[in-house]
């Protein structure tokens, strides 16, 4: 069959007529009333379009939507900032800048790290030194578990801790002594001490893992030895048991008396012995030569070069040198140290001042040594002046470096510090401890910046650019709207189509389902879902999907009802009879012939529904139960400033975003209204 397209024919004819008319007009003729060119026939689609265009509100809505789509989907491509990009700025912050104090504690540095110092001795150093200062002692012997130590005052403020060699002399009290080892294989008894008669014979009868036997009234105990089939035999000896040679003379008596009275040190015949309690026994040691293990001091090093990190062994050798001839070397460089005005000054090989050691330390509040020497000296001087005048606070004008985000100082291109002038306030906190605070320029997160040329809508509480987040948020908000509406429509069309076409019990069943879903309170359910997803800490993207699926699942009932109603009326029309007569498959009958006829209404409801979904999504996100930070949607942006104070102060964030939501929903509604009127002019009132 030849096709006959009325439109094409008419267009052709209209073109001819127009040409003829133009010719006629050119010749001064007039267009006839019956001319085809006067009658314009439009296709249904164009008619709808024309009617839609005439509706001013609908056009306004479409324009808003187009702008919004460009803004949300193309905006982020052109806009330089991302949604999770944090912005920083330099700003004055009143900080606790530094802490100045007189050192009361003594720090130890290893002089000879090969010598191990007992932990308990090292820990007690501060109190021991304090005791020495109080009682004006020059030397002090400390006995630990493993050895004896000597603390000696070298120069004021510098103490050395030496380890003394100890030789065990004897042990006093109930001493357990290993008599020997009995081997069952060789039936031999190897004595560790002088041979004791009778023991070997008695040992021959040993049985079992452990036990005891008696010889001459002396009790012996045995346990299984290190080698198989051997037994170690012990006995407890009273009195003094010598390990090495006996000093003889009065020693034994003196040492027993000292052990009984619990003394820790005793001198017999000009030899100093130390006594260490070990269980019921007292071990006696003789002190030998001493060796310096560590050096303790309350001096801190201030180098002339700012921020120079010195190794601990530099300090150790400097302090040792200060106590000795004054010259030392560290890292292959030679230095000399001299005492000047209660300070220890270190000169390098060229005789220039390299560093200074004082008992007064000025450090950054964090404890770092990153302040310049001049500033330290200025603060020290100010503190001394303050103390002299009896004040508790003082003010000092100084220049301090600007600090970066990670705490490092900012430098310009030439590597010099960028300084800012500030007024330092020195306040006494404790006896000999002073806090210095001041306004420092720090590199901080640019929170809640007011709108400016670099951030058109300002920044939010996380230092994110609000405009960027509005763009990305628009993407998600619009996408959520579309996906939910698509889910709703697909479900609704399928179920509504089936119900409407088949009727009967299928219809009944599906319509009862529709009733049930209609009755389901969707907002509370969404809130409960959100709270549950909060509880199990679901991933942000996953919860976005769950939210969309849930919204779609709860919204299909309306669409199904609409589709069914339309199909019920369409089903009886002639073209459906024709489809039946031509034997088209049922699936095609529903989805190719019936559903397209429902399309206009579907498009209208879907457009209106989009606005509703965007509202629901933004409300959920606003409550913090929808899309989560750091993902942006319009709801979350407003949520971030929903507290009373943020709301009052940062209106520049939430007002534009709220208006945007309003505009979007209004635009969708206008377009939906316009589409409905355009599709069905009879319904327009």
């Amino acid at each position, binding site marked *: 069959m030849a096709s006959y397209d009325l439109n094409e024919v008419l267009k052709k004819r209209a073109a001819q007529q127009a040409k003829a008319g133009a010719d006629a007009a050119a010749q001064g003729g007039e267009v006839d009333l019956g001319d085809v060119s006067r009658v314009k026939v439009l296709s249904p689609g164009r008619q709808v379009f024309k009617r839609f265009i005439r509706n001013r509100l609908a056009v306004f809505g479409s324009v808003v939507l187009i702008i919004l789509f460009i803004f949300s989907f193309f905006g982020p491509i052109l806009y330089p900032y991302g949604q999770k990009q944090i912005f920083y700025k330099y700003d004055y912050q009143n900080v606790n800048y530094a802490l100045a104090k007189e050192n009361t504690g003594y720090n130890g540095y290893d002089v000879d790290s090969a010598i191990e110092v007992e932990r308990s001795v090292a820990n007690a150093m501060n109190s021991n030194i304090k005791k020495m200062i109080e009682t004006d002692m020059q030397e002090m012997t400390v006995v630990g578990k493993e050895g004896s130590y000597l603390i000696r005052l070298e120069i004021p403020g510098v103490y050395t801790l030496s380890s003394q060699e100890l030789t065990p002399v004897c042990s006093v009290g109930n001493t357990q002594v290993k008599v020997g080892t009995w081997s069952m294989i060789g039936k031999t008894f190897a004595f560790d001490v002088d041979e004791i008669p009778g023991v070997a014979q008695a040992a021959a009868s040993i049985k079992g893992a452990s036990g005891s036997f008696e010889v001459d009234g002396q009790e012996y105990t045995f346990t299984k030895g290190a080698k198989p089939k051997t037994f170690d035999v012990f006995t407890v000896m009273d009195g003094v048991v010598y390990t090495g040679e006996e000093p003889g003379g009065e020693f034994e008596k003196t040492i027993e008396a000292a052990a009984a009275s619990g003394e820790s040190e005793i001198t017999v015949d000009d030899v100093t012995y130390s006594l260490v309690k070990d269980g019921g026994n007292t071990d006696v040691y003789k002190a030998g030569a001493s060796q310096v293990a560590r050096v303790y001091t309350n001096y801190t090093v201030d180098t002339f070069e700012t921020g120079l990190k010195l190794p601990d062994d530099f300090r150790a050798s400097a302090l040792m040198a200060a106590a000795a001839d004054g010259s030392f070397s560290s890292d292959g460089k030679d230095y000399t140290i001299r005492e000047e005005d209660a300070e220890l000054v270190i000169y390098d090989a060229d005789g220039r001042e390299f560093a200074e050691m004082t008992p007064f330390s000025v450090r950054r509040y964090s404890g770092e040594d990153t302040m310049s020497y001049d500033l330290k000296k200025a603060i020290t001087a100010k503190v001394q002046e303050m103390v002299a005048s009896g004040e508790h606070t003082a003010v000092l004008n100084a220049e301090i470096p600007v600090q970066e985000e990670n705490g490092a100082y900012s430098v310009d291109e030439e590597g010099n510090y960028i300084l800012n002038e500030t007024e330092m306030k020195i306040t006494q906190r404790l006896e000999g401890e002073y806090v210095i605070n001041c306004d420092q320029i720090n590199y901080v997160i640019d929170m809640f910046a007011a709108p400016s040329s670099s951030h058109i809508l300002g920044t939010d509480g996380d230092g994110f650019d609000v405009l960027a987040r509005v763009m990305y948020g628009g993407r998600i908000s619009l996408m959520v709207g579309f996906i939910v509406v698509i889910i709703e429509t697909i479900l609704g069309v399928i179920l509504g189509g089936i119900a409407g076409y088949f009727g009967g019990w299928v219809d009944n069943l599906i319509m009862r389902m529709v009733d049930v879903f209609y009755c*389901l309170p969707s907002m509370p359910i969404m809130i409960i879902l959100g709270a549950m997803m909060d509880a199990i800490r679901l991933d942000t993207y996953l919860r976005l999907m769950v939210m969309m699926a849930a919204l779609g699942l709860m919204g299909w009932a309306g669409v199904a009802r609409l589709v069914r109603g339309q199909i019920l009326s369409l089903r009886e029309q002639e073209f459906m009879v024709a489809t039946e007569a031509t034997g088209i498959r049922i699936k095609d009958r529903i989805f190719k012939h019936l559903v397209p006829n429902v399309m206009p209404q579907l498009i209208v409801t879907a457009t209106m529904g989009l606005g509703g979904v965007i509202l629901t999504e933004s409300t959920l996100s606003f409550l913090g139960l929808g899309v989560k930070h750091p993902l942006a949607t319009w709801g979350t942006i407003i949520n971030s400033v929903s507290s009373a104070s943020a*709301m009052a102060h940062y209106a520049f964030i939430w007002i534009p975003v709220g208006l945007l939501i309003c505009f979007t929903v209004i635009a969708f509604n206008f377009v939906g209204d316009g589409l409905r009127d355009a599709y069905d002019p009879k319904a327009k009132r």
Partner: protein
Amino acid sequence: MFKYTAKRLLYSVLILFFVMFLIYVLMYNMPSGYIETKARELASRPGATKSYAEWLADLNAQYGMNQGVVQGYFTWLKSAMTGKWGDSWSWTIPVTKEFHNTVWYSFILGLVSFIFEILIAIPLGITAAKKQYSFVDYFTTVVSMICISMPTFFLATILKYIFSVKLGWFDLSGMQGRNYMNLSQFGKFLDVAKHFVLPAITLTIINIGGLMRYTRTNMLEVLNADYIRTARAKGVPEKKVINHHAFRNTLIPLVTTLGGSLPSLFAGALITETLFSIRGIGFASYQSMIQGDIPFIMFYLAFISILTLLGNLISDLLYAVVDPRVRLS
């Protein structure tokens, strides 16, 4: 009429049965451990009246969470029908008691905004319809569209910003002023009333748009009817045409929808009450929902489902009552 009502009632009960089943399934499938965690948290709260085991035993007895879904549902249904709704987890008092404490605030708030809604929306809608395509009509259309499209939280925030922060007329949220306790009985009433102003305005504005559009559409339909043309043709004064002939007929759909929305006055305004901290049922249920208070949530969901069904029923019946042309079958 009676037969129809009875049939509809039975039908509503059937729907309610399935709605509650869906809700029960949702609750039943709460992530594992969630209930246990919540119960443990409750038991360890200061002043807890029940131990962890007691809370769980309560829950199992009432909700049958330890049985299969279907069996559990019937267990719950049985205890719910006998009025055993259990103790609320977040309010630690019986659910029904918490309901009594809160529902009247919601009702008053709903009623006030309902009255204002009617007083504002219906006259405006009718005026717009009378002068179709006039400025008033466009204005009404746009305003109603804005009201429909306004997110509740945004409107509430704007109102708070203007009236509480900038003008300082009202408190930001809450139901009582700072010196509520020192006020006289009447003063207390006024204080609470003052705190209800902003929420009432919010609710009114949110709901006004839909009613306005509805009124306008129906009025236009009536004005296009043949009997109006007849009346005009017969020379009946325009005032009489509008007020007597048209308005009365417009009332038919209006009364049915408004009657249908009466039960929802009890449902409470979830978002508005939460934003203004009005201790109504909406606020209580929101708090319960985010705290996983299963007894109260189940009660609230059952309650609003019943209200929705009741609303549908009322509007259908009213339709028959108001319009004698409609025959129920």
